[in-house]
């Protein structure tokens, strides 16, 4: 095989590694591991920043109209007047929280971070198929992030029409919205390059003997996710182009005839359709939900198999369910639009597909729960987070059913019930899975373990406060409290549940404090963590644990050859309770 191969680039061969200057090795690197770490660190910072935005916002909800103590005085008058938050700033915080958490936090961490670092190792490849595109993908993401952050400083502030940017409101919003659209264009192209790279890598570069049904479920999850990113993001690109035209060239794609703005007829040609944006937006944003959840499921299944010391229950069911899930996710988007003028026939169709898509989700969750049965579970920090993922995602999924049914959605649409529902899916759901992944793969990346005591403090406080934050939102939503309300006291029906807002806000700030042990642990363990004894500290079976620690450029000393499936734990009559994929015979 060797004479049919080529190094990714002439100056980047195996021996050229040490000759590379610092900026090529750690900043503009083409190595998937460096890019994975870059993605991980950047997106963790964005996650923290996005969380800070919402912690600020929660002050206004808990204590409406009162000056923010201590830090309130440092904000300019366009944002807060003597510490009292202005409505414009409140809406910027909300819109940018959503945008940053989804597009700059969770997706880059789950796909760009874990996918880039772990996936080539798990399939026994030396790198991604297109290393230079991989680097470009990260830098497009970085530029997109900088544009999003910079938009806070333009006149009128950042985007403030919600992360969904519904027109006509977003069309007439201040310039920050244009920055948002341009930033999204960078992020969309970044994910396009990433998804092409992932698909080609998985199809072409699997190690010898590693058939599709010997792939770890994490790889399958990334595979399906890549197709969703590849095919669902472009319609949002199309929508962004149209909205950009509306804002810059004054077209009327989303501006209807006879639109009145500030008591005056809008000076546009008209003839557009605001709901067109919603169709294009949700065609991305519903598959996006599965982009957020599938990699999380992949991470959790790796950790569950390793920490129960037994094979996953129903591996093939998991694979087929996730493929079906990926397919179905393209035909459920309009269940976000039951309250538009699209008509009852359309609603009925999307209600049915929505009910159907819950089936594969339930299959995946059930197989993961059944995988615990009869295992000798190790309650390590990653396992605790993975175990917590299961009921949290379960609550998130089940509370989604009333939203997928048109009749009950009429009452619940755009209330705090929706906020509670999807945060259960992505916050204690996906983010817990991502924390689990950080604790699980940290020893492979750094050669040192993270501290278990700090990890458990982080877990238990996060678990308690996450639920304190999101559970009361269901009550508020059922009481009819709408999302995106600057003044929570505006409506009489919201006043009885106002005390809950204070409880939620305090819990959110405590949740912020609960992340301190993680931050200390993460950075402290890089230099002071306990060194791992060998390359496989968790006694796991998949290929990344057979690579040297930390893996060098090119990953493996010799191309690995695979002889068995991914989860051969506790094979009967074996001397040790795990059999690596590279083992020719049961050990």
């Amino acid at each position, binding site marked *: *095989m*060797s004479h*049919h*191969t*080529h*190094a*990714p680039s002439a100056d980047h*061969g*195996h021996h050229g590694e040490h000759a590379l200057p610092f900026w090529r090795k750690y900043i503009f690197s083409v190595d998937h591991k460096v890019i994975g770490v870059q993605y991980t660190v950047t997106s963790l910072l964005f996650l923290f920043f996005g969380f800070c935005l919402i912690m600020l916002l929660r002050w206004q909800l808990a204590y409406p109209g009162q000056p923010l103590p201590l830090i309130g005085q440092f904000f300019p008058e366009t944002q807060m007047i003597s510490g009292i938050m202005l409505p414009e700033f409140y809406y910027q915080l909300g819109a940018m929280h959503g945008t940053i958490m989804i597009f700059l936090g969770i997706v880059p961490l789950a796909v760009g971070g874990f996918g880039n670092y772990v996936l080539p190792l798990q399939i026994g*490849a*030396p*790198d991604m*198929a*297109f*290393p230079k595109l991989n680097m470009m993908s990260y830098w497009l993401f970085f530029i997109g992030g900088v544009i999003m952050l910079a938009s806070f400083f333009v006149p009128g502030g950042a985007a403030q029409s919600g992360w969904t940017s519904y027109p006509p409101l977003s069309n007439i919003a201040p310039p920050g919205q244009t920055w948002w659209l341009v930033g999204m264009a960078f992020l969309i192209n970044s994910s*396009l390059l990433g*998804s*092409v*790279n992932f*698909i*080609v890598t998985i*199809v*072409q*570069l699997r190690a010898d003997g590693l058939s599709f049904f010997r792939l770890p479920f994490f790889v399958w999850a990334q595979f399906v996710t890549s197709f969703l990113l*590849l*095919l*669902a*993001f*472009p*319609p949002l*690109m*199309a*929508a962004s*182009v*149209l909205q950009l*035209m509306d804002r810059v*060239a*004054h*077209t*009327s*794609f989303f501006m209807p005839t006879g639109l009145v703005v500030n008591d005056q007829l809008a000076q*546009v*040609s*008209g*003839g*557009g*359709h605001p709901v*067109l944006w919603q*169709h*294009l937006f949700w*065609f991305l944003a519903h598959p996006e939900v599965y982009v957020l959840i599938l990699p999380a499921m992949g991470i959790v299944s790796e950790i569950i198999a390793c920490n129960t010391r037994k094979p996953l229950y129903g591996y093939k069911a998991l694979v087929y369910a996730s493929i079906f899930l990926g397919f179905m996710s393209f035909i459920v988007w309009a269940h976000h639009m039951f309250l538009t003028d699209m008509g009852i026939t359309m609603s009925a169709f999307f209600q049915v597909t929505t009910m159907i898509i819950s089936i594969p989700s339930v299959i995946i969750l059930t197989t993961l729960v059944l995988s615990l049965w009869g295992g000798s579970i190790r309650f390590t920090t990653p396992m605790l987070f993975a175990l917590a993922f299961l009921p949290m995602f379960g609550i998130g999924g089940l509370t989604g059913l009333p939203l997928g049914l048109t009749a009950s959605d009429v009452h619940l649409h755009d209330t705090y019930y929706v906020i509670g529902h999807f945060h259960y899916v992505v916050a204690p759901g996906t983010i817990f899975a991502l924390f689990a992944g950080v604790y699980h793969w940290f020893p492979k990346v750094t050669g040192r373990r993270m501290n278990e005591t700090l990890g458990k403090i982080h877990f238990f406080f996060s678990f308690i406060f996450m639920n304190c934050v999101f559970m009361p939102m269901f009550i508020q939503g059922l009481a009819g409290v709408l999302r995106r309300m600057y003044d929570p006291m505006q409506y009489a029906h919201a006043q009885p549940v106002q005390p809950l807002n204070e409880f939620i806000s305090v819990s959110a700030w405590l949740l912020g404090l609960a992340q301190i042990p993680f931050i200390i642990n993460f950075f402290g363990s890089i230099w002071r963590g306990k060194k791992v004894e060998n390359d496989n500290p968790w006694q796991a079976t998949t290929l990344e644990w057979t690579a040297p620690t930390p893996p060098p*450029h*090119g*990953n*493996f*000393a*010799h*191309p690995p050859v695979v002889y068995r499936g991914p989860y051969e734990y506790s094979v009967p009559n074996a001397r040790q309770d795990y059999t690596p994929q590279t083992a020719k015979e049961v050990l």
Partner: protein
Amino acid sequence: MSSEIRYISHPHPVTGVTNSKLGVWCFLASEIMLFGGLFSALVMLRGGSTNWPHGFEVLNVPLATLNTMVLITSSVTMVLSWASLVRKDLGKYRLYMAVTVLLGLAFLVIKSFEYGYKFEHHIYPSKSTFYAIYFTMTGLHGLHVIGGIIVNAYFLLPGSKLWHKDPEQFTGRIEAAGLYWHFVDLVWIFLFPILYLL
């Protein structure tokens, strides 16, 4: 040896394609969804409109027909340039690739005459939703043409050095660039009747 990426110039024995060819097909799938989104928007806007003009009444059909011929011809020369490489004829390759680049430029020049004529008569995207989608879609297509010309010009001049190092990989690159160029051509084949003739 382990740090080398496989199937860069030789196809994978099972999938039958090189990495770059599979990558380009994936990229084109994504592009179809991009233009698909815009075509769907066009259908929805037209369906909801009461006074949508016929393209042939307001747009310059003869120029667009000429442009269609130019672009189809460039697709043919693109294939010929790739076929020359398969037959190991670098000289012919350069000739056909140069013609492809020139035809691409010719398309843009003709298109800019069309745009210029509209601007002279104060017809901008903001005039009506029809012109909005016309300028947006042809503009985005034009950007794709510019991208293709840049790629082709690169392979015509500095990029062709690879031929002497690894002819197979270079041929694969031209094939991938060709797939993209045909796609750009194909988008126009849809745009032309839908915008100009219907």
